[in-house]
């Protein structure tokens, strides 16, 4: 039925199309088994549990943030206090050392 130039006419294309459509329409049906359903449900339950755990962490997240912030403030205050007194301690140490060093030549005399 192909014409001499090798071109298909409309009827031929329609016939081929009809064959493909008929083949597609007669495809085998697929029955899903109870085992398949169980496997889907098992995965859904697993996902749900993971989701619950995740939301629990998300629910507690602001508390974790608050605790971390409080800890940081305490650490900062301790550091400020330590550095403040550290300066005084160092100064008194240097002064003591300087006095010792200057008093040493007098004692040797």
């Amino acid at each position: 039925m192909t014409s001499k130039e090798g071109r298909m006419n409309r009827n031929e294309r329609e016939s081929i199309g009809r064959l493909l459509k008929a083949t597609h329409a007669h495809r085998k049906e697929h029955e899903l088994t109870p085992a398949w359903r169980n496997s889907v449900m098992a995965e859904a339950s697993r996902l749900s549990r993971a989701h619950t755990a995740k939301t629990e962490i998300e629910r507690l997240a602001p508390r974790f943030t608050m605790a971390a912030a409080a800890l940081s403030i305490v650490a900062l205050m301790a550091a400020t206090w330590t550095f403040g007194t550290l300066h005084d301690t160092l100064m008194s140490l240097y002064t003591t050392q300087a006095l010792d060093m200057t008093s040493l030549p007098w004692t040797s005399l």
Partner: protein
Amino acid sequence: MQAKAGQNKEKMAGKPDDITVIATVLDGDVNAFELLLARYEAPVAHMIAAHVPGQHVTEVAHETFIRAFKSLSGYAPVKPFQNWLTTIAARSCHDFWRERYRRREAPVCDLSDDGQRFMETALAAQSKEVFETLARQDEARELLALVLDHLGPMDRMVITMTYLEERTARETSEMLGISVPNVKVRTFRAKRKLKSFLKRHDIQGGSHES
């Protein structure tokens, strides 16, 4: 349609509708999801079987329902749940082919002499009954698979929906998440490829009207 009729029957029998079931699942009762599975597994399997080989229907159906479960909170009841689920199924089928084409190492085979002979016989069938019988044979399925294998994953999905299933461009575009002009362009391109494939094998058609 079948699922919808079933749902109406269930409603009459006092079973909850889809929206109620979804709300129950979202409230944390995972077991309620089984009701949706029971309602829609048949139409979903039917739809998937039209796009992927038989031995992969179960895994794609599994993937579809798990995706639906994960995005259940995103379902807006502006369209029926089955339509929403079908869209997910269509996209799962597309992903299946994308993955499959990505893994494909050997080039797509050409039509064998037997295949060509079968096609000639089918197209030369004089009665509709003979033609229908031939269309049910494994050779016909192999032939269809071979023809579709010459198309890319998205073109394959588009041609199956618009040409083989005769869905509208709008319906196809909604299911695959692409624009209507894109569907039209892809259909045109896929048909042209199909024609050149048939021409290359000098396939001859025939009348098979009863």
